[in-house]
């Protein structure tokens, strides 16, 4: 079984993550579409920290019997990987759009100068 202090610390940490994400959306520093994955991460981690029996069971599936919270870390890492991958696609799209904007601007400037 997960030591109680570990469960409490994990629950507090995931709750804080949720609060921070909420505040970032509220103050318009984070768009909803980019917050969804973070919220999902926070909720899953929070549920697994509080639902200690569930974490035990999941740990058992993977043969982790000595220290179930290791699974918590693994799941957290997995979610962070997904978020990072998502951001890589977002950055790629932004950079494509930036190229298009620069090209359109160059064409416009040329029209203004010579037109």
């Amino acid at each position: 079984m997960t030591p109680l202090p570990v469960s409490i610390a994990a629950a507090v940490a995931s709750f804080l993550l949720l609060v921070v994400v909420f505040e970032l959306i509220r103050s318009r520093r984070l768009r909803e579409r980019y917050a969804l994955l973070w919220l999902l991460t926070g909720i899953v981690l929070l549920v697994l920290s509080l639902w200690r029996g569930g974490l035990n069971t999941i740990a058992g599936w993977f043969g982790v019997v000595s220290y179930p919270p290791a699974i918590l870390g693994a799941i957290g890492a997995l979610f962070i990987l997904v978020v990072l991958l998502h951001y890589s696609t977002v950055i790629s799209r932004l950079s494509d759009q930036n190229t298009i904007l620069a090209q359109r601007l160059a064409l416009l400037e040329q029209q203004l100068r010579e037109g």
Partner: protein
Amino acid sequence: MAELLAELDRIAIVPALNEEVTVGRVIDEIREFDPGFDIVVVDDGSTDRTAGVAADRGAHVLRLPFNLGIGGAMQTGFRFAFERGYDIAVQVDGDGQHDPSQLPKILGPVLSGDADLCVGSRFTGDGAYRSSFARRVGIKIFARVVSMVVRQRVTDTTSGFRAVNRRGIALFAADYPHDYPEVESTVMLVKHKLRLVEVPVAMRERGGGASSITAFRSVYYMTKVLLAIFVGLFRRNAVPLEEEHR
């Protein structure tokens, strides 16, 4: 109503993404209803001849350099309407599902001063509207949630067939929701103490193109919009654009 309308500078904002088949007819039908309507087609990154067809008809065309989504496209239209000093704006989708002959219904409450935004609803009255089961359930859920939040009965929060006055234009030009804006913009408007009125309208089946909302994306869409509505309740209001000299 025609006389009241004639005194106002009025514009139809037509968002269009790959609607070369239908956008021409939409423009013609708006002019048929009222030749005094200026028309601005916001081409949201089409890869077909949407912009060309619209320009040939003599409409203003705003070509976005890439797809912004319906929210970004509509806000472009509202910015145009704001800067050009229009008094009243209607949204008529480029896919032909909004019937311009129904415009008097959504214009009425705005012209009479009863509404800052008037939304044409598919569900409150005439005009049988068919759509997928999942879509109908989603629309029902939104209707419930939004009705609760704005403390007023609304039946069709996803309708894009709308008329808005100068106050609404100034607000939406300053701040308009991203991605799927109809539901959120309704809540936002009421939060700004502007008045919302919903009227029944008949809508048509889509004339061409494909709906921008596929079944696969609906869950993401619903979650995102519900989150936005929830967070929006705790948000400070945006400041509508200031009138420079009127």
